[in-house]
C-alpha cells in the first residue's frame, strides 16, 4: 500500500560518541515484508522508531508513500507498530485496547465495534475480548497487539521483535501466524529482529545491519549464499561461515560445504583439503565436526556440518580428506572484508 524510504538518515543520541543510525539509505517495495536483522545495538530498533516518528532524526529524510514525514508526529504517519513488550494498556480490556486507536481517530462507536469484531475474528481472539492483558498468555497478548495495529488499516506495519517474549515452542507457531497474517493483509511490513531464523523465515528481503549501517540488503537466499562481506557471512548461519586466511584474501565456506571425500560430487574447481577432527558434536539431525583445516591457507580452526543422512565414520584426532566444491567458496578482501573476485586455489 505504501513504500517506505529513508534517505541519508542519521541519528546521534546526545552524549553518545557513535551514530545509532549512520547516513542510511533504504527503500522497501510495495507490500514487501522487509526484515531488519542485526546484533543488539546495531541501530535496527532506532531505525524503526525513526520511521515511526517516535524519534526525530539528526539529519536525513523519511518518506512514506512518497510523502516526507520528518517532523510529523507518529499519529500523522498512517503507521501501526507492535512493540517487543506488546505495550498493551494494562487497565483496559482487550476490546478497549483494540478500540483505542479508532477512538483516537474519532470513529463512531458503532463502526468501532464492528471494526474490533472484524480484527478479533481475523486473529481468532473473539472470546478473549473482555479480558485484561494480565489474564492473557504471551501468544494471546501478541494477537491483541496485532489486532490493535490492524484495526487502523495502516499503510505500514512496524514490528519490533514481536516474538522475542515468547518461549521457544510458541515462537515457531507464532512465526507461522505472523506470516499468514501478512499474506492476508498484504501491507508493507518492516520487521526488526536479532533472530536469523525469524529473518530467513519471514522476510521477502533482509537488511543486515551493523553499527548503524546496512551491510547488505537482499533476499534470504542472497544474504546467506552471497554475503557482501565477512560481517554478514559470520553473522548469518549457525554455525557461521568458516573464514580462512590465504595471502591477501579471506576464503569463506559454509560448514555444510565441507564434506568428507566421496560424499559430494566435486566440481571443476573443487579443492581437496586435509581436515583433522578434534571433537564431534552429535546434535541429532546433524553432526558438527570441530577441527583444523589446512591446505587452503593458514591452518585454521573450522566447523564442518554433516547432515545425519551422511553416515560416514569420522574418527577423532585423525586427519581425513575433505572436499569443498569450488562453487561453495567465497572470497573476501583481507583489509575491507568486502567480497572480491573468485580465484582458483
Amino acid at each position, binding site marked *: 500500500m505504501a513504500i517506505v524510504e529513508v534517505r541519508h538518515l542519521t541519528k546521534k543520541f546526545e552524549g553518545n560518541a557513535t551514530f545509532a543510525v549512520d547516513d542510511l539509505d533504504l527503500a522497501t517495495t510495495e507490500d514487501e515484508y522487509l526484515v531488519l536483522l542485526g546484533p543488539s545495538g546495531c541501530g535496527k530498533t532506532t531505525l524503526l522508531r525513526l520511521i515511526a516518528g517516535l524519534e526525530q532524526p539528526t539529519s536525513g529524510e523519511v518518506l512514506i508513500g512518497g510523502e516526507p514525514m520528518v517532523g510529523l*508526529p507518529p*499519529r500523522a504517519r498512517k503507521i501501526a507498530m507492535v512493540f517487543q513488550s506488546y505495550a498493551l*494498556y494494562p487497565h483496559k480490556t482487550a476490546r478497549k485496547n483494540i478500540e*483505542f486507536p479508532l477512538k483516537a481517530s474519532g470513529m463512531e462507536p458503532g463502526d468501532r465495534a464492528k471494526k474490533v469484531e472484524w480484527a478479533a475474528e481475523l486473529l481468532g481472539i473473539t472470546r478473549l475480548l473482555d479480558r485484561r492483558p*494480565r489474564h492473557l498468555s504471551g501468544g494471546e497478548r501478541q494477537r491483541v497487539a496485532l489486532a490493535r495495529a490492524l484495526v487502523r488499516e495502516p499503510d505500514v506495519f512496524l514490528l519490533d521483535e514481536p516474538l522475542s517474549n515468547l518461549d521457544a515452542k510458541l515462537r515457531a507457531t507464532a512465526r507461522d501466524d505472523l506470516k499468514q497474517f501478512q499474506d492476508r493483509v498484504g501491507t508493507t511490513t518492516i520487521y526488526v529482529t536479532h533472530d536469523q531464523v525469524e529473518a530467513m523465515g519471514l522476510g521477502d528481503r533482509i537488511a543486515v545491519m551493523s553499527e548503524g549501517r546496512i551491510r547488505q540488503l537482499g533476499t534470504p537466499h542472497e544474504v546467506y549464499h552471497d554475503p557482501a562481506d565477512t560481517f554478514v557471512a559470520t553473522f548469518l548461519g549457525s554455525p557461521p561461515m568458516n573464514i580462512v586466511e590465504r595471502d591477501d584474501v579471506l576464503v569463506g565456506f559454509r560448514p555444510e560445504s565441507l564434506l568428507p571425500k566421496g560424499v559430494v560430487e566435486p566440481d571443476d574447481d573443487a579443492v581437496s583439503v586435509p581436515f583433522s577432527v578434534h571433537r564431534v558434536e552429535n546434535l541429532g539431525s546433524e553432526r558438527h565436526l570441530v577441527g583444523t583445516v589446512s591446505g587452503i591457507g593458514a591452518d585454521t580452526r573450522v566447523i564442518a556440518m554433516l547432515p545425519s543422512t551422511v553416515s560416514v565414520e569420522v574418527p577423532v584426532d585423525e586427519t581425513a580428506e575433505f572436499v569443498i566444491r569450488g562453487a561453495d567458496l567465497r572470497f573476501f578482501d583481507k583489509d575491507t572484508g568486502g567480497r572480491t573476485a573468485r580465484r582458483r586455489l
Partner: protein
Amino acid sequence: MSAVRATRRRRYLFDRDGVLAPMMLLPSVVYIVALVAVPFFLAIAYSLSDVTVGDPSFDYVGLRNFRAVLKDPVFRRSLTNSIFITAVTMVLVLVLAKILALVLTRDFRGKWGVRFLILLPWTTPVPLAAIAWLWMLDSLFSPIDWTLRRLGLLEGNLHWLGNSKLAVASVITVQVWRIVPLAAVIIMAGLAAIPQDINDAAEVDGAGFWRKLFEITIPLTLPVTAVATLFGAVLVFTDMSVVYVLTRGGPVDATQILPTWAFFRGIQGGDLAQGAAVALFLFPLLLAMAVLILRSVRRMEVL
C-alpha cells in the same frame, strides 16, 4: 575428631529463628508501644475520666466527656473545618502535584535545579515555614498586599488572617504549599513506572495530549495517586502547627480544627479529659480514610 565435630555442630542462640526474629523486632516494637500504643490507650483512658491539669486523680466518668464535646459548638466547627480544609487541600494538591509531576518528568535544561527548588518546602520544618508564611500574610506589611497594591489591584490591606474566609484560604494555601512537593514526588515515581513502550504505543495509536493524559497516564498512576492522597490527607488532618502559628484557630474559631481544639482544651485549658476526647475523634476518621483508600487501591487492576 569427634570433639571438633561437636563444636562445629553446635547451634548458637542466634542461629535459631525463634530467637533471632523477636530480637530484631524488639527495638521497633518497644518504640511503637512506648510512643504510639501507650499514649493512645492513655488518651482513651483520659477521655473516660475527669482528669485535669489541676487534679490528675483518675475517676471514671463514662462517656460524659464525649457528650459534652459533641454538644460544644466549637467542637463541631472544628470538625467541619478539619474535614473541609483537608478535602479542599487534597483536591488542590492532586491537581497541582499531577501537573508538577508531568512537567518535572519532561526533559529540560536545569531540570535538577527546578526539582531541588520544588522539594524545598517539604524539607522545611512545618512551624518554621508557618512563621515565614505569617510574615507573608501580615496584616500591614504583607508582601502579597504590597505587590497587589503596586499592580493597582488593591487599595489598603487584605488582612489575610483577620478575615474568616481569607484565614481559611490562607491555611489551605500553606497546607497545599507544604504537601504538593511530597505528592508530586510520589506521582513522579508512578509516572516513571509507566513503561516507555506504553507511552509510545499511545503515541502511535494516535492519542493526543489530553486523550493520553486521561485514558492512559491518569488511570495508570491512580494507585500511586491514592497513596499520595492518603499520606497527604493524614499529614494535613493531623497537623496543628500551621493553624497554631498562623491564627490560633481564629478569627473567632473560623480556622479552628480538631488538633488545635484538642490542644487548647486539653493543654491550655487544662481539661485533659475533654482534650483527649476531642483528639480521639481524629482516630476513626483517619482509620476510615486509610481503609477506604487502601481497599480501592487493591481493587484497581493496573499492571
